[in-house]
């Protein structure tokens, strides 16, 4: 496990073919489409990435870029109940040698909670208000372990203690509404980690929290990851959080990956104009207050009518730099920029280098 994480080649281009990959988690050409009355919503449209144990991958993007749908697809949440009829999924998701897209719901259920677990953005709606926090953790544990309630309860208390809830023996009998926002998020992390999952997906785990609590939760996730050596997918729109916690970054736009690489590369040498836009629109506490922010003009695209060519072209200030009409007609594919750093953009390497060093970097 440690050997794998040491290699660190978490964002290599996935190999093709239907055979089990070496990576712990590998997603190949994942497509998640939702047919609606207005047309097909292409929430995720050809996404590939891989992740090793012990590493943290951050998926960044605006609302509606397909971040959350990706994570729910990995967890197999789209196929639950009646919802399964309204989704079209294709591609492959390999988790520890097992393919999930073609697996039966029962197989996925065995993995869910045990091999992979999820932390949601809003802990108040993710927890059942009628049941005690402890009972909900106990349930998650007993689904996968044949143990008595007493043992499971001891385990729940142990987990609550581990995530830093004071007086866990007392709070285990509390209801979600009796917990504060930060506490609830901790309790949910305890619930997610009760089975020692090897893949932890955190969907905007700190967005609803205050900065001070956010710092606590991020530290907690980092500590627990070190302790358990799990792989973590962190979904967020806050680049500050990404810089803090992620090893690798995947930037999504319009259901596709537009840039991916190690956190250092993406922050120091971002290649895609959308990444520049994200960096430019963030007010930063560590730099001189520049006069103005550099926003990305316009709004995120509709996923029903994704713009032709490069999905970002209507908002891209450099859409006319490449010759001809290429940005409007041809969809750019991911190309390797440097080792482990991929970007999908029609701009030539020289143009990107020039724009980044001359126009963008000085303003950040």
């Amino acid at each position, binding site marked *: 496990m440690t050997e794998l994480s040491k290699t660190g080649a978490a964002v290599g281009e996935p190999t093709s073919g239907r055979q089990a990959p070496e990576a712990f988690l590998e997603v190949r050409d994942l497509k998640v489409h939702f047919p609606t009355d207005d047309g097909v919503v292409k929430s995720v449209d050809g996404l590939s990435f891989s992740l090793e144990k012990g590493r943290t991958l951050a998926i960044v993007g605006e609302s509606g870029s397909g971040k959350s749908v990706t994570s729910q697809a990995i967890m197999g949440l789209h196929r639950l109940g009646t919802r399964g009829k309204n989704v079209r999924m294709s591609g492959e998701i390999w988790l520890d040698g097992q393919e999930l897209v073609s697996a039966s719901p029962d197989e996925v259920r065995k993995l869910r909670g045990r091999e992979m677990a999820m932390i949601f953005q809003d802990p108040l709606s993710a927890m059942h208000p009628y049941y005690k926090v402890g009972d909900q953790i106990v349930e998650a544990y007993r689904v996968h372990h044949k143990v008595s309630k007493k043992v499971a309860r001891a385990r729940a208390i142990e987990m609550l203690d581990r995530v830093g809830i004071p007086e866990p023996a007392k709070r285990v009998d509390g209801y979600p509404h009796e917990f504060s926002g930060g506490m609830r998020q901790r309790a949910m992390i305890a619930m997610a980690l009760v089975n020692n999952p090897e893949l932890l997906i955190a969907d905007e785990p700190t967005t609803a929290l205050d900065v*001070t609590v956010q710092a606590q939760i991020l*530290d907690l996730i980092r500590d627990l990851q070190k302790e358990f050596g799990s792989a973590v997918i962190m979904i967020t729109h806050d680049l500050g959080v990404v810089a803090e916690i992620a090893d690798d970054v995947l930037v999504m736009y319009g259901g596709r990956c537009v840039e991916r690489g190690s956190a250092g590369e993406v922050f120091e040498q971002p290649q895609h104009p959308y990444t520049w836009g994200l960096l430019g*629109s963030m007010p930063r*506490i560590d730099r001189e*207050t520049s006069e103005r922010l550099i926003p990305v003009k316009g*709004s*995120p695209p509709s996923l029903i009518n994704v713009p032709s060519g490069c999905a970002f072209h209507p908002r891209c200030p450099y859409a006319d730099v490449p010759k001809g009409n290429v940005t409007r007609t041809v969809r750019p594919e991911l190309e390797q920029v440097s080792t482990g750093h991929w970007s999908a953009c029609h701009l030539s390497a020289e143009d990107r280098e020039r724009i980044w060093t001359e126009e963008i970097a000085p303003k950040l």
Partner: protein
Amino acid sequence: MSETKKTDTVAEAAVPKQASAPEERDVLLKVEGLTKHFPIKKGILQRQVGAVKAVDGIDFEVRKGETLGVVGESGCGKSTMGRVITRLQDPTGGRITFEGRDITRLSTGQMRPLRRDIQMIFQDPYGSLNPRHTIGSIVSAPFRLQGVEPEGGVKKEVQRLLELVGLSPEHYNRYPHEFSGGQRQRIGIARALALKPKLVVADEPVSALDVSIQAQVVNLMDDLQQELGLTYVIIAHDLSVVRHVSDRIAVMYLGKIVELADRTSLYESPMHPYTKALMSAVPVPDTKRRGQKNERILLRGDVPSPIAPPSGCRFHTRCWKATQICKTTEPQLVELKPGQRVACHHPENFADQAPQDTVLLSAAKKASELVPDAADGSAEEASVAEKAPVTEKKPEPEKASDAEKKPVAEKASEPEKASEAEEVTLAEEVAAEEAAAAEEAGEKTGPGAKTSTGKPSTGKPSTGKAAPEAAEPAEPAEEPAAPAAEADAPAEEPEAAAEETDRQAGTDSQESTDK
């Protein structure tokens, strides 16, 4: 002749007034001792059994043309404050003066003409627009309500406003659901600006928006301020946004302003420990800084309940610098540096306001273990050195606090290489062991037992911590109310006390746990 004389005297009379007036006249909104308590009622008779003290005595003023940012954690009363100063809610006490006129007790009818001048932008762009009204009718509502007939007609003016905020005039007949979040927020801004207000209170104007859209709205508000000479009060929890937009910033904690300063002073040398902790918690989009994690101050726990706020300084339950005085005496918001008002007994980056008081509270002790901060330690030393000449009479307590901080710094620098996980667990273990030891000491009266379990567990810092621990029981004995006694007497006090504790550890710690 007589006329000129008359004007002369008038001018003369006017001059002194003007000389003193400019500052007064610059102030657009002045708030004094503002409180807002929400009663908690119980039983059949609905008797009031308590109150949520959402805003509990705040003073500030907003000058013309500036942007005042208000930050704080959720539940600190910042939104209530915004609603009270716009008189959407009635204050419980205090005074609100707008352009020199007391508006605290104006009735709804009396307030109405003033609504032209005071407008509000709301947080939730989905909840603040009526879904059954078209954009045209939403944005023209202020004209209708105020009976204003703008030049060229209402429709033309509304379309001009829509263009001003970056929307298309054709959107006039659309409904809110046809717009994205950022566009809706623009509609809210257009509505707020319709009557050319003097003061705009914006409650979390961008927190519901995506980063890229957030930047658009921030820039828009900035442009409009310059174009229309607006004055903003911007309430937000995002410190980077507030820093970007504000000229001055008020930091709120549990219904009180703990620090009020201009942007540069506040962000470069925050004085209140709470401000410092808030700043250090903001994630920065820079991977290079990741190695410097240690400068972060991790506050433990949550904001206490505003129903029963802590005594004295409200932050003392989470503050790593808290001493006895913080528990008993509430610090006043005083101007320590020009333009920087702080309510703290032991401010950062400045001379200690209560240097004689060195006894750390238990919360502070726990917190100081969690502040693995070498940089902070050195800053502390620097500030101590800077303080030394000022407070020459009382160098000893300073030293004590200095000494007790050093081990923390040392401890922090040592396990720096080690994982943070270990550090936290270590701190937790220590805390747990201390708690266990305290319990044990509480149950048994055997003095030896406590020292053996309590002290070695803390490991390295134990030597440093002996001083404050020892001083804790010693302090109340030697009249905390008479700090003058400290001047020369306590020269050996902490050290002597430390030795004393070692000898009488049993009884001393017994006292401390009893307390």
